[in-house]
């Protein structure tokens, strides 16, 4: 995509295109400007601007107190966010790679997720944990995972995977507003992609599935970077006369399944695409919801899941590419689904 011309001063630019990463930064800046309780903390997010450049110049705009560099101390950082949230602040933590949440799991799973419930509703933990996830950067097994299903399995955590620049901003703003802990998983390959984010674009509600494209033949449900790959596959399939829907749940927990069930009931075919390994993955939940609903009676073919291989992400580029779904694989899977029915 190309950048659109700057809008005349004093008007809002409805066609503005910015990067996913700029959209995240804009959300952080707007939230900090609007609410002094909001602050961000994480490793190398200050002068350095973040390992993926997401916080950028926020340190210079908001100062070292509110754009707070921390030691390499994930458990401590997340715990500090839990405590600050309990004591009236709205912390936004950046964990440099989502893999490093493993270092902080006690505070995420045993503390943040449970405090509101466990305390009988007497306290709230309004915190956000942002973390880049996914493969495709040659960073190998400890810097490339997709652990979203772990978080989505824990009652008390909300889990968000924005797939577009507009959602990256809008879902983050809603996450910061939310009185609960929200995990926002940003795909690294999306940071440099661009999309329309109108000036003044606001909140995108949590727990609302997006229908990215409406088709007749196959319902593709995809998360994270797989949304973009599925949209690309959809164009190629259209050239073959196969008309697909692409549905992006956006919020994995709590899940808005109604648009998915409705679309599958219409097409009779479901292709579920995720980057994470298939075994016990998030799309297994989607498949279960389909077969537990009346949509099962409308199925013309067995549900098809296309997932990452059940392997750690390898280093070599050809191996890494082979380990997770690519556009070709999505096209092939949709075609075979049509043949099966």
């Amino acid at each position: 995509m190309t950048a659109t011309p700057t809008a005349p001063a004093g008007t809002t630019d409805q066609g503005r295109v910015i990067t996913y990463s700029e959209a995240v930064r804009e959300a952080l800046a707007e939230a900090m400007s609007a609410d002094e309780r909001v602050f961000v903390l994480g490793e190398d997010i200050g002068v350095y601007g973040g390992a993926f450049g997401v916080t950028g110049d926020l340190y210079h705009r908001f100062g070292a107190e509110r754009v707070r560099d921390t030691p390499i101390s994930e458990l401590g950082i997340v715990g500090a966010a839990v405590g600050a949230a309990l004591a009236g602040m709205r912390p936004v933590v950046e964990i440099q790679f989502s893999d490093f949440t493993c270092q902080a799991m006690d505070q995420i799973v045993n503390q943040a997720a449970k405090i509101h419930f466990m305390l009988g509703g007497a306290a709230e933990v309004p915190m956000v944990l942002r973390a880049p996830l996914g493969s495709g950067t040659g960073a190998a097994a400890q810097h490339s995972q997709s652990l979203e299903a772990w978080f989505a399995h824990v009652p008390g955590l909300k889990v968000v995977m924005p797939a577009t620049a507009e959602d990256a901003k809008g879902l983050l703003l809603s996450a910061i507003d939310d009185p609960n802990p929200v995990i926002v998983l940003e795909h690294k390959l999306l940071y440099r992609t661009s999309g329309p984010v109108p000036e003044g674009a606001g909140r995108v509600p949590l727990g609302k599935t997006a229908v990215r494209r409406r088709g007749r033949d196959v319902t593709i449900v995809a998360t994270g970077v797989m949304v973009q790959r599925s949209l690309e596959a959809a164009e190629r399939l259209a050239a073959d006369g196969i008309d697909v829907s692409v549905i992006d749940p956006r919020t994995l927990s709590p899940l808005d399944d109604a648009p998915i069930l409705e679309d599958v009931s219409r097409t009779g075919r479901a292709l579920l695409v995720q980057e994470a390994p298939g075994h016990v993955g998030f799309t297994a939940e989607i498949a279960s919801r389909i077969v537990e609903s009346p949509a099962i009676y409308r199925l013309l073919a067995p549900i098809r899941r296309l997932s990452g291989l059940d392997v750690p992400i390898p280093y070599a580029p050809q191996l890494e590419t082979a380990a997770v779904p690519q556009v070709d694989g999505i096209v092939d899977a949709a075609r075979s689904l049509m043949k099966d029915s």
Partner: protein
Amino acid sequence: MSKLGDDATTATRTLRTMWQIRRFEEAVDDLFARGLMHGTMHLSIGQEASATGTCFALRDDDAITSTHRGHGHCIAKGADLERMMAELLAKETGYCRGRGGSMHIADVATGNLGANGIVAGGIPIAAGAGLAYQLQGLDRVVVSFFGDGAANEGAFHEAVNLAAIWKLPVIFLCENNKYGMSFSTEKSFAIENIADRAVGYGIPGVTVDGNDVEAVNEVVAAAVERARNGEGPTLVESVTYRWKGHSKSDKNLYRTKEEISEWRDRDPIIRFERSVVERGVLDQAAIDAVRAQATEDIRTAVRAANAAPDARPDDLLEAVFAPATA
């Protein structure tokens, strides 16, 4: 600075709190033994001075985080005895409406940010609350209670370091009761005093006799003053002993009867009573009255909690997430 036993009013209040803790724990022990209480429990009998001396150095608007052995901390911070007992008895009127139980009692209104079932789980949370107060420009402080076992968790290291580099208003209060479940501090530490670890973080570390309520209070008060003045955290090691087992499954296979009996002779409550009598602050009749009052306080709490309605399962799903207010 005046001591807790210097005047009759403060001495009475101190003594009553310690006896309330003792009687509360005894009542819980008894209810469990008779099969009238569910779950598990971690009693703090023998550690009453540590909880009381510490919390009595705080203002009402200061905060604490607590541990699985947290009943004493709650009571000393001013929790309502009936709501605590109701929580343990699985009642709707309990602090957590039956969803938390013994290990998760919190009372945010009195600055109790919560007990914790995870060893060291509350330490980073305390640092975070301290960070919030610092950012908000408030002069509140946070005490994080934890045991000797927690000082070997990574969370301890990370949280103390954060508090040290940011000069957070936190007092890290390590209750060294000699055992992490069955594992003795002799085996789990290669240093003599846990407070010595403070050097590694560039903060003061103090070891205090945790069975001396006045000594604990003085040490913590100094740490609180330092924290309130923006000078940062202190690590306080309060050396004490739990008379009872770790939890109800404990058969005391790892320690001797002699050792337990030696520590029972160092009863922190009796010690304070003797001291105030010797100093002429309270007489025996006043002390007997405090004991009787504390016993009655707990009886009332048990009676009222027993009569309260049971916790209800009907809104469990709605309780997972806090509702949006905006």
